[in-house]
Structures are given as C-alpha cells and as structure tokens.
C-alpha cells in the first residue's frame, strides 16, 4: 500500500502540474479537495478519473462514490487495491 501511495503522489504531481509540491509535502490522509489539503478543484477531479482509467484500468461506475474515493491519496490507494483487476 505504501508503495502505491508514493506512486500516486508522483502521478498527481505530474498530471496536475503541482509544480511547487513534492511527494513529501502531501499528507496521504489529508483531503485532496477544499481547504486543509491540496486544494484541488473539479477539473482536477476529471484528471484523477483519467489517472485511474489510464494507469490502473479502473472506471468509477457510481459517481456518488466519488466523494469518498477521492477524499485523500490513501482512500484512492485503497480503492485501487480493492478494484484493480
């Protein structure tokens, strides 16, 4: 899981152009969206959906689950671990 979390941090930094952020700056349990975390927005959510589809072959079938899955890097990693075929 730790390895996947670090990999995800790197992918988020690269795909979302988080130029002033390093993997060490990202708290795996902090919220990705809104205040108190990375402060991502709805366009970033689309980018993350594509990271999951392209890199892990995971499609989010139920959009209502999005809030829960995208809460933090850790929740993303847990979802990938459970759903990757």
């Amino acid at each position, binding site marked *: 899981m730790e390895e996947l979390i670090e990999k995800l941090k790197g992918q988020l930094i690269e*795909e*979302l*152009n988080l*130029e*002033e952020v390093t993997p060490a700056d990202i708290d795996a349990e902090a919220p990705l969206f809104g205040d108190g975390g990375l402060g991502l*927005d709805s*366009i970033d959510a689309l*980018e993350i959906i*594509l990271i999951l589809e*392209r890199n892990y072959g995971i499609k989010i079938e139920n959009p209502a689950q999005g809030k829960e899955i995208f809460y933090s890097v850790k929740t993303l990693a847990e979802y990938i671990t459970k759903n990757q075929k």
Partner: protein
Amino acid sequence: MITPVYIRSTASIHSDGQAQGNAKRAVEPDYKEVITDAGLRRRMSRAVKMGVYSALTCLADTSSDSVGGIITATGLGCLADTEKFMKSIVDNNEQLLTPTPFIQSTFNTIGGQVALLRKIHAYNVTYVHRALSVESALIDAVMHIAEGADNILLGAVDEITESSVDIQQRMGMLRNNAAGEGSQFFLLSRNSNGCVAQITDISTRRGAITQTDFATWVDSFLSNNNVDKTDLVVLNGSKQVLTNAIDFKNQCGEYFTAVAFALWQAVEQIKSGARNVLIANSFQNTNHSLILIKAL
C-alpha cells in the same frame, strides 16, 4: 490616417537577443509576483503566463471599469498546450483525453483569463491573422476608441516550442532569423493626459513587394503624416533596405506577432527622446505593415 490613439502604459516579456540554437527565448519574470494564485498558475502554459503577467502589469494602475475591451493578437496561440492535446489524442487513440490542455489551448485563453482575473466584462476578441494579427487587433482597438471607448487593452503573445522551431526552420519560414517569442501589452486611450506616445497611423499590405515598391510605400506613408525622414527612428523587421534602421528582429527573433515587440521598443525610443518612430515589418515578403508612433 486613423483616429489617433494614445499609449498610456506598456509591459513586455521578450528575449535579450541571445539565441539558444536557432531560438531567441523570452526572458521570463517570476510569475508569482503578479499571478499570485498558485492553483491558477499551475494550469497555465508559458504563453498564458507570459500574456497574463504582461497584461496584468500593464493594467496595474487602471480600474477595470475604465477598460472598454481586451483585444489580443496571436499567430499560433497557446502552442505548447495545443501540441500536448494533439499528442494526447494520438497517444490515447482518441480516448480518455485530459481536459486541461484542451481548455488552455484555445486562442482566447489569455484574453479570457485577464478578463476573469480583473473582472472586465467588456468586448473581448483574439485576432489570429498570421503575421497581420497585431495590425488587425490594433485597427480594431482604434475603431473602438473612435467609437467612444476610454481605454482598450491591446496585447500580443506567441511562444516557441521545440517542434515549432524545427518545423519553421524546415519550411524556410525564418529567413535567416532565429525563431522568436514574446508578449507585449499596451493600454491604449482616447485621452492623451498622462500618456507617453501616440499611434498616428497604420497601413498594411499583402503579397510580394519589390524594394522599389516598398520604398515608395514608406515615402508616401511618411508624407501623408507630414513626417520628415531626418527626424525619424526606423525599426525595421522587413528584409527591405531602409536607411539608418534598427533591425528589431535581431533582438526578438522572427515570429508572427514580432511587430508588438517593435511597438514596445518604439515607446522606449520615444521615452528616450525620439520624436517619430516608424515600424516597418514584413513576414516572408507576404504580410507587410507600417506603423507610425509620435511623441506627445
């Protein structure tokens, strides 16, 4: 002759004239100072950052309510994001395309971002007319001011990418110049109070032109504006021979909106004491323009 418009403020990001390979890249500032929102900045390509930075710098002392329009010119637009988006279409077999490069690759990205950041709810247009983009934008700005706008923000942006330099070189578009890039913005006004220079006239032509025809065109343009050649600084971006002219593309390189750099340089010449500055520009002996700037 046109309705005179006055230049209130200018901002420029341009090359220092040093070529790296066959490209003269702009010397970029620390964007954080002006584009303070890191979330916004991270999505911007170099062209967007250069454009937004110079536009906001140009507007620093101006209230948004007094700006009657934002008119931008570009030859190739936000090229890096366009390339990124096109590459992504090919790499991903037209599936799963990320939204950001598409959103940022449209020609009006820069004008749109400036309007959103400064809340300028006015006319907003981007001219993409190859090497006459700046001239078309300028003519539009002049018409808006003639119709009553107090201020118009006029700007031009083009960026170099590795592949664009390569393609332009292979197509013979650079004509012994290095490829260039840059961003210039000008706040044009109806009233001369507090302004630094006046744009007096502009003339454009299309199609191949001989040295003799070019010289006749310049003479007639100057004569129509009662300008004595002995009291004139000439900024030349054409391959035509003009007496005592400064080759401005020697500094900024060759690109579709290079004439905007010359306009910025003309204002600097006026600030240094010149009374009249003529900009003569040609791109591939196809698009030609003359612009006359006078001291107030």
